[in-house]
């Protein structure tokens, strides 16, 4: 098991509404559990505000859960020292939603892709950047260009190249295709599946779009208002949804398709 999330809860304190009352608390993720095996893909579906991105941020150790544990390859992420966590980070990487915001506009593409390698102090940076670009269907010559010279789909490829350059075991994709045109979406999804086969990646794939998740995932988890409504093998959840919310999502996806 590469990722094991157990009974994780995350609360946010909202701004105080009245002076003498305690500030209201938002439970963004309520007692969520999930696990992913090597090479497998788990999809999390839910509308915005369902807590799926908060869950992703906790898996990436960008924030800590209030309760519960997150284990990556046996290591409890919140029990590691800062230095240990930093070393471990190269093994789980993330692809973000906004292909225009996830690359530093002032740095060349090659510089951005090489960033995780530089932190590791890895040798042969240039060759590995070229390889990563090749993996995602871009040319080695593109390394010297700036992000604004690329289209949204190309930028997402660059972001994926940066995420796989350290050969991670887990890739977290938070709405990684939501900002792209439908035709480009399919290309990026195919790319992710190819990379998964080639590199043996496990993936945590987060989307509000059930149709996208259904096409790529082995397992499915449906969230709403921070709660897990149902989870299980993708074909089972899709064929016989047990929760009315999942059924409504399925109907909506069917109507859209």
């Amino acid at each position, binding site marked *: 098991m590469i990722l094991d999330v157990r009974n994780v809860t995350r609360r946010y304190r909202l701004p105080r509404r009245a002076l003498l009352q305690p500030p209201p608390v938002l439970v963004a993720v309520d007692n969520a559990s999930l696990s992913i095996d090597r090479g497998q893909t788990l999809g999390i579906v839910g509308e915005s505000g369902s807590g799926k991105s908060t869950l992703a941020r906790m898996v990436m150790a960008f924030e800590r859960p209030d309760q519960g544990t997150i284990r990556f390859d046996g290591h409890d992420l919140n029990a590691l020292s800062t230095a240990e966590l930093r070393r471990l*980070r190269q093994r789980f990487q993330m692809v*973000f939603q906004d292909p225009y*915001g*996830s690359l530093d506009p*002032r*740095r060349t593409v090659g510089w951005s892709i090489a960033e*995780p390698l530089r932190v590791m102090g890895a040798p042969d940076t240039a060759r590995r950047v070229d390889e990563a670009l090749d993996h995602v269907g871009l040319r080695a010559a593109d390394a010297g260009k700036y992000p604004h010279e690329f289209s949204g789909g190309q930028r997402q490829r660059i972001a994926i190249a940066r995420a796989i350059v350290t050969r991670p075991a887990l890739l977290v994709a938070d709405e990684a295709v939501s900002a792209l045109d439908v035709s480009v979406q399919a290309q990026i999804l195919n790319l992710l599946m190819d990379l998964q086969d080639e590199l043996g990646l496990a993936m945590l794939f987060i989307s509000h779009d059930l149709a996208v998740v259904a096409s790529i995932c082995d397992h499915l988890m449906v969230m709403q208002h921070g709660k897990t409504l149902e989870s299980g093998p993708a074909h089972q959840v899709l064929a016989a949804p047990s929760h009315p919310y999942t059924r409504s999502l399925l109907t909506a996806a069917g109507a859209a398709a």
Partner: protein
Amino acid sequence: MKLPVNLLIGAVLVALVIGAAALSLVWTPQDFTVMNVRNKFAAPDTIHWLGTDQLGRDLASQLMAGARNSMAVALAAVLLGGSIGTALGLLAAAIGGWVEDLVMRIADIGFAFPALLFAIMLAAVFGPSLTNAVLAIAFINIPVFARVARAAANQVWTREYVAAARAAGLDRFAISRDHILPNIAAPVIVQATIEFAVAILAEAALSYLGLGAQPPSPTWGRMLSEAQTLMYQAPQLAIYPGLCIVAAVMGFGLLGDGLRDVTDPRLVRER
């Protein structure tokens, strides 16, 4: 893209002032320290382009040398204050929490403290000199840059490429150096240009009070102050340095505004 008018006018004025200051390093029409009391208050002619002062020194040469002092003080003060202030702003944004609150409250105190009073205090304690003038003006610049840098840095910290850098394993200081600083450079440079104008004015005010560069090194502020008692006899002695100060302050102010217009994407879209 059409360049804004304020940018062009500002650039021309700034180029004139910097040109005069640079030229004075190698050449002035006359030696500005040479006195000739017999030739005092001379009218402009081919030798003394703007005439002479109460000691017969060449006015145009003094103004050029004064530009050099003004530029040197303003540059040193803005560089020093800007670097410290920007570093503090970056630190506040990178660490957040009580460190950020502390830095910004100290900046608030810096804002509340009358700048000129602080300079006078410094001069009273350490004696009037060009160095102390630079230190005083640099000090009043620190909170300005701390605020600008922190506000811009906090915006950049929310970007996904910063999250990607965290995922890559960079710590807060490396992120500040590699991603935040390059992306806040534009607003900081704009602010520096505007603060340059403020620094020129502050230097003139300090020199006017006798707290800046000491004689015989000429500055616009001291030329004004010396001309004060001669206002009715020779008003041109006050008018020329006054005009120089106005030109320099206006030039840097307009240049800063223009740069902001060009670099601020919101304003670009409105145009």
